[in-house]
């Protein structure tokens, strides 16, 4: 975005960002909100599934869009850049994931079981089918993620999995960009230590 765009966004109520236009439009015409679903469901679900597993991730991504729809009046366009719908959605998803902390920890425990093969549902009618996890690094990563403070993990996974930049993570979590940077540094250091060195790919060789 050019400086001129940024200037216009701050001063012009009609945004040039198609996401923001859609979101603002959905306040009067709710049907428009489905456009945002079509645009972002897959990646939000990818993020949620990475943290909670496939089935919980399905649920959580669906819930994210319901919450986003209900709270669309609260989306702010007066922040830096005129508001970022994608970051806002990731913020909602991240908040919802916090409520499922036990599910997230359970996921990391499952991933940490080296060579885990079968993860069958325990509920009588839950026909979850076996899920294979592989990769020698996976248990180490899972343990490192489980041990991270939630706020550091949020920043790391929003960066690594969702591929948000500092400004977007900052918008998603409502924390200053500088804080994002320090949390990310701390989290990366912990993961790198868990991988046993500075070059994780070196350990990965021949094992995955």
């Amino acid at each position, binding site marked *: 975005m050019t400086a001129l765009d940024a200037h216009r966004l701050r001063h012009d109520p009609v945004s040039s960002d198609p996401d923001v236009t859609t979101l603002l439009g959905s306040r009067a015409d*709710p*049907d428009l*909100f*489905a456009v945002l*679903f*079509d645009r972002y*469901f*897959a990646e939000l*679900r*990818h993020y949620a*599934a*990475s*943290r909670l*597993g*496939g*089935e*919980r*991730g*399905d*649920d959580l*991504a*669906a819930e994210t*869009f*319901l919450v986003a*729809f*209900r*709270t*669309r*009046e609260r989306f702010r366009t007066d922040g830096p850049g005129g508001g970022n719908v994608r970051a806002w959605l990731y913020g909602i998803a991240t908040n919802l994931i916090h409520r499922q902390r036990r599910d997230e920890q359970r996921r990391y425990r499952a*991933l940490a079981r080296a060579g885990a093969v079968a993860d069958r*549902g325990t*509920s*009588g*009618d*839950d*026909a*979850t*089918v*076996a*899920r*294979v996890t592989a*990769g020698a*690094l*996976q248990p180490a*990563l899972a343990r490192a993620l489980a041990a991270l403070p939630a706020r550091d993990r949020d920043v*790391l*996974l929003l*960066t*690594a*999995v969702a*591929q948000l930049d500092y400004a977007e993570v900052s918008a998603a979590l409502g924390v200053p960009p500088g804080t994002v940077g320090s949390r990310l540094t701390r989290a*990366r250091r912990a*993961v*790198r230590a868990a*991988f046993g060195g500075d*070059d*994780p*790919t070196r350990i*990965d060789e021949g094992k995955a």
Partner: protein
Amino acid sequence: MMHTEDHVIRTLLAEPPAAAHTTAAARRQLTDAIAGRRPARRRAPSWRVSLTGGGLVAAAAGVALVMAAGTGGPAGLGATGSGGAPGVAAPPTGPRADAGAPQLLLAAAERVEGTAGTGRYWRVATVAEGALYLPVRVKGETFHVAERRLTETWTPRDPGGQAWEGRQSLGFQPRTADDEAAWKRAGSPRTFDLGPADSPQGGHVIRRMGPGRAELTRSTGDSDNAGLAALPADPAKLRAEVDTLITKQGGEPTDAAVFALLGHLLTEAPAQPELRAAAFTVLSTLSGVVNAGSRADVTGRTGVAVELTQTAGTFVNRSWLILDPTTYQLLGGGMQGATPGKDGKPDLSRGGKESAAAVLTAQWTDQTPAPPQGR
């Protein structure tokens, strides 16, 4: 700038993408919420457990109003159905079954206030029914199945005591009479294959007719239903809080929205007698609630239905409660939302939302919490 470890993290945590039907179900949840201009019905945690297995996410929204004869009915609920039979004689001055809805609701309020009693736990047992939107295809036949789930809450009288929740799936059954006919033509299978699971391994999602395992767990008290049960038991305060709650969820506190929320509170939340009485009292003040005549609950018990229908844009929402016509005890309730059919009622053949539940027990007890015993 992509750090190497970021790439590793992204790769190691990656899950296979959502199945198309999962995405479609999630989208339908959203468009239902959009069409209804109010939140899609929140799924109870117990439903989450059973109905999301294999990625069958939003499938939980459905219900069959009356189970087809021969496949359902109250059989199998006997062990938990102690409160199912009308237990309290109606006051001799009570309204007749053809009385106006407000009179019936006020009688229900009076009746439930009389439920006060001794006992260590306030026990509520509810059977909720959810249909799967995914069709089962066997031997050239196609039909839908519905699941009944039994949930029991045990709320201690002592506020510092431990609350418990019991859950059990009572199994899946063909949904409507048409579904049952197709099911019979397909050889009356007792297991239902709902298609490929979301799994790198393949495999299929299988649902069964018989009951599942019963579980009893400590309640954490942070569920939506527990929140509803904590609402104030004074009618004016209750109405104000309900309005606030609906507004917070992005809806408008119309009479229809209030009816739907209080109906859910009465059928599925562990609300105690005083709050139930207040809820019935608030319901009696809503406009547009009508006596819709005789109707069966999801376990087949017949009562008189009080119902509210509201059109919001291109969407019709219909909510109802079923009362025993002589004791005014609550038997159950439900809701439907969809675009209107020719009769002005929600036409679910084009998609929509549905749910229904029957209250088997709502009473104080000295029993010790135990897993449900549906058969």
